[in-house]
């Protein structure tokens, strides 16, 4: 069993890698790409929010900075938007350090709201700084690298595999224990000699970089970004939180499961003609239900779920 668990990620990766070979439709491939992209953002958020306990309401800020790095390099620098992926690592980590310097002195809900404000500041800035971002017009990538979605799928899959591996490595290392210690009791962690400010900043930067990479990928894949899309409060920041909350806070597979559920749910709701406009209502109700009944998400509350379904042995 232990062996199986160890190779489970590799098995899933292998399975996903051969999936395009069986001839999926473009639509199915698009859904898969979105699921994988969201699980990257979810895993990144989980590193900061789930393990380190710093709930961010503004991951759209990092997503957007990554996306705009790629977009601006293409639109102003004349280079391929793919350069945005390596460059976004630099930009987003510097940006996250600045944000961390300002916001990480706040705790709990106040940190959450400060990040929320940062997300909104960036959206408004991107809307108004037309000389750099083209404002509300957005940036369009005119030359698509590939017509087929298969290669985008492999790019995002590689990215997700790297993210999963690194997050797992970080969490299972000393750093991960520091993070959890900070989450459980910041003062106690501080008194044990953990430099909480430093490690919170590390968690924020790591989380931001993965989110930014997903953002840069988004620019390349979708070929169009504008401030309202990539800096969206509900459709990016809150959905990120939902992905993790539904899947399972502070679990490795939680964000993956959460993103499968969220992306499929969004697609299903959008495809129902009269309910399409109401998809936020469904998200909101789902969020409320999850918080009241499964506060630790599907993976986190697995024992509770099993008991409810009467699958597991009676306790």
């Amino acid at each position: 069993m232990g062996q199986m668990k160890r190779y489970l990620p590799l098995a899933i990766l292998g399975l996903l890698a051969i999936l395009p070979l069986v001839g999926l439709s473009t639509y199915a491939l698009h859904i898969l790409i979105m699921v994988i992209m969201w699980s990257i953002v979810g895993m990144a958020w989980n590193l900061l929010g789930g393990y380190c306990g710093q709930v961010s309401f503004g991951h759209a800020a990092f997503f957007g900075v990554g996306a705009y790095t790629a977009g601006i390099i293409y639109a102003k620098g004349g280079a391929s938007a793919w350069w945005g992926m390596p460059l976004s690592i630099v930009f987003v980590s510097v940006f996250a350090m600045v944000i961390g310097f300002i916001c990480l002195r706040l705790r709990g809900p106040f940190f959450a709201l400060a990040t929320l404000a940062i997300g909104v500041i960036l959206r408004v800035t991107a809307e108004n700084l037309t000389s750099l971002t083209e404002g509300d017009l957005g940036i369009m990538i005119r030359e698509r690298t590939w017509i087929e979605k298969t290669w985008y799928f492999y790019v995002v899959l590689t990215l997700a595999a790297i993210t999963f591996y690194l997050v797992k490595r970080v969490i299972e290392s000393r750093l991960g224990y520091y993070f959890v210690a900070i989450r459980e009791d910041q003062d106690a962690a501080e008194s044990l000699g953990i430099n909480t400010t430093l490690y919170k900043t590390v968690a924020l930067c790591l989380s931001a970089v993965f989110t930014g990479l997903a953002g840069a990928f988004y620019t390349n894949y979708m070929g169009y970004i504008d401030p309202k899309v990539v800096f969206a409060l509900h459709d990016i920041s809150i959905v990120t939180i939902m992905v993790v909350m539904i899947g399972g806070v502070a679990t490795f597979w939680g964000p993956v499961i959460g993103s499968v559920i969220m992306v499929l749910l969004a697609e299903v709701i959008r495809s129902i003609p009269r309910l399409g406009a109401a998809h936020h209502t469904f998200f909101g109700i789902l969020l409320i239900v999850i918080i009241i009944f499964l506060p630790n998400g599907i993976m986190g509350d697995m024992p509770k779920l099993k008991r409810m379904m009467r699958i597991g042995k009676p306790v």
Partner: protein
Amino acid sequence: MSSAQLEVLLQTLISGLLLGGLYALIGIGMTLIMGVMKIINLAHGELMMVAMYIAYGLFTLFHLDPYLSVFIAAPALFVLGVLLQRFLINPVLKVDSILPENQVILTVGIGMVLANLATVFFTSDYRSTPVDYATKAWYLSDFWKGSPIELSLSFPWSISFLIAVAITIALWFFLAKTDTGKSIRATAQDNDAALLMGVNVGRMRVITFGLGSALVGAAGCLFIPIYYLYPDLGGQFTLIAFVITILGGLGSTVGAIVGGLILGVFESLTATYAGMGWAPVGRFVIFIAALIFIPGGVVSLLRRQKWGR
């Protein structure tokens, strides 16, 4: 400074103060909830949006003046707030989870549902209540013939401001003089001590959430004659309310009033001198500056001067 520039500056300050008075009312509602329940209500602006739609509905159906609809919308919002607190927020306070921010995320969910339901029922069209006094204003030159500069005072803005002041004074009386008000303040100061002194803390929480919602509902009715209405307007006002509470000092009513006025004036200044689009950025610059330089809010500065309570 030429007289034209002075005119612009004074006019900006006046409209900033009038806006600030309304902001204060929104901020007080949030700060009350924060003080008593120790949670941040991120559905605050959405509650205001609901009140605005009530006022809008009453205006279009019965031609009821938006200022009169305060008496209907505020009680309605009180009931809505009580229901939300009883059936959604209270259960979550009891649930154990890894993340303590669950309550905040819950209010986000409530806000999302409210905003989206408004879109479904009322579409995302911009609405307004075209009252016949909307463009009425007093001019300085009407009172002082030889005035070197010309200033104007909008009629609906002034009325909204005055009603906001009246509601604030009434609230102050309620909190300072009545039993319930005193119990609410006691709960805010020390939950356990209040419980030991025989205060029904659970009921105070419900009443406070209702009261906070009613206040922001009243603010919504005061806003609608001078503003326009659309379903997604709530988020913006939630952030405004939050910035005010941080600026003023958490849980402090005096702080919320001062914070509201500062924010109103500052926003009005950014709108005049940097452009309308930048006003939200100015709002958050002030927010982050407050977090860094005066983490206790304005009220902590007042306390240092022995002005605040």
